């Protein structure tokens, strides 16, 4: 098999004396779609935030496309160029229009000229179905629209991998679907994605693998069918019974 795009080997992460990640081992190959779930405080977000170095891991090794994440700024920058991220709270730059939000990184980081950056931006705005909002400020959009802009912003850097950190948790219920649809489209086009989410329907229909975390550990890792029909670990069963019972 080819080299994995993401490799985490025996990764530990501490916040002070609290251990947020315990001996995490994970491999993700190109085109794989991974859903990570688990109770709050289980380390899901911390794990994916280690992948683009928003958190610095304390022990173990992380390789992204064969490049090890170290303290070297050069390695970190190289990894961040290939890994896009979508946040729970959108984190659009409030002082820039939608278009400027999308053009900023391609211009500054990829050194694209303005017309190229604009072209790319409009292409991805079409793709998330809101080209008509290009000249508005984020505060003028609904939550669902803002999150779609955030996805488009990440796509403008043409990343190898997209990380989603609870992308629908801050949305009103009626807006969740429009965001999930965009994510499903991406998944169907072969984007490598790791998605922290509680949307079990999304996990069922899109994921190649579901990872269950609790207390900083990966407790169970299985295909969606296996995971939902026949969970092995007691903690997984308890979690599923809690979130699927209503």
């Amino acid at each position, binding site marked *: 098999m080819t080299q994995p795009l993401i490799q985490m080997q025996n990764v530990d992460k501490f916040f002070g004396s609290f251990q947020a990640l315990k001996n995490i081992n994970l491999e993700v190959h190109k085109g794989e779609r991974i859903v990570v779930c688990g109770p709050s405080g289980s380390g899901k977000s911390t794990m994916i935030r280690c992948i683009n170095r928003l958190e610095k891991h304390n022990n173990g090794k992380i390789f992204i496309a064969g490049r090890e994440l170290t303290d070297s700024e050069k390695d970190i920058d190289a990894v961040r160029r290939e*890994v896009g991220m979508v946040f729970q709270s959108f*984190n659009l730059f*409030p*002082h820039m229009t939608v278009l400027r939000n999308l053009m*900023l990184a391609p211009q500054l980081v990829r050194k694209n000229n303005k017309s190229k950056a604009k072209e790319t931006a409009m292409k991805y705005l079409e793709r998330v179905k809101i080209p008509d909002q290009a000249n508005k400020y984020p505060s003028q959009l609904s939550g669902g629209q803002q999150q779609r802009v955030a996805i488009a*912003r990440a796509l403008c850097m043409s990343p190898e991998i997209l990380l989603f950190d609870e992308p629908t948790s801050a949305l009103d219920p009626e807006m969740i679907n429009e965001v999930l649809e965009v994510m499903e489209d991406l998944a169907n086009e072969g984007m490598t994605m790791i998605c922290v989410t509680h949307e079990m329907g999304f996990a069922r229909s899109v994921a190649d693998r579901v990872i269950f975390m609790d207390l900083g550990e990966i407790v169970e890792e299985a295909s969606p069918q296996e995971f939902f029909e026949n969970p092995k670990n007691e903690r997984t069963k308890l979690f599923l019974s809690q979130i699927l019972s209503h």
Partner: protein
Amino acid sequence: MSFDISLILDSLPKMLSGIGLTFQLLILSGVLGLFLAFVLLLMRLTEKWYFSFPAQIFIYVFRGTPILVQIFIIYYGLPQFEAIRESIFWPILREPFGCAIVALTLNTGAYVSEILRGAVLAVDRGLLEAGSALGLSRNQRFIYITSPLAIRLGIPPYSNDVISLLKSTALASTITVFDMMGIARTIVAETYAPYEIFISLAIIYMIFTFFIQKGFGYFENFMSRHVKK
């Protein structure tokens, strides 16, 4: 007690002739102080102790002592040193006006750098993480994300500091600078009419404060245009 209106009308033009000096004090020390504040801010934001520690000491000293004391130390104290009298700064420190500018600049610089630091720290961390995740370098994040947002957050406390600087300029009169306050004090010494003179002077300062407030209000609206629906 009588309240002599004609005396006010007589002395208003005299006091207003000091307006130029008051404004020079305000604008020169305001601009230089802002520049100093920015340097102090950058020193404090680096994680190198040999930059941030001296900045912290400077800020502590100038916020921790009365501005009048600072003015007196600079005007009466510094010329005692031979080295100062022979330095390139002597042409500035020899003049009361220069001393006032130096004191006001150092003082306002210390305060404003703390305002700027508060504004920088108040910028939503999530936005900087989004910048990092997009591959922006530390400097790019500072220029394109932190600065524009921090400027907006800093306007209200900064306008407060400019107003307080306007009033501090009156202290320059204690070292023989003839700004509006200096002229007013001379008139009072001649006429023994402190109420009339100082009350009309107070009104003049209030009018200026009004315009400063208005100006910053417009600036704040302009910088907040993205927040509007």
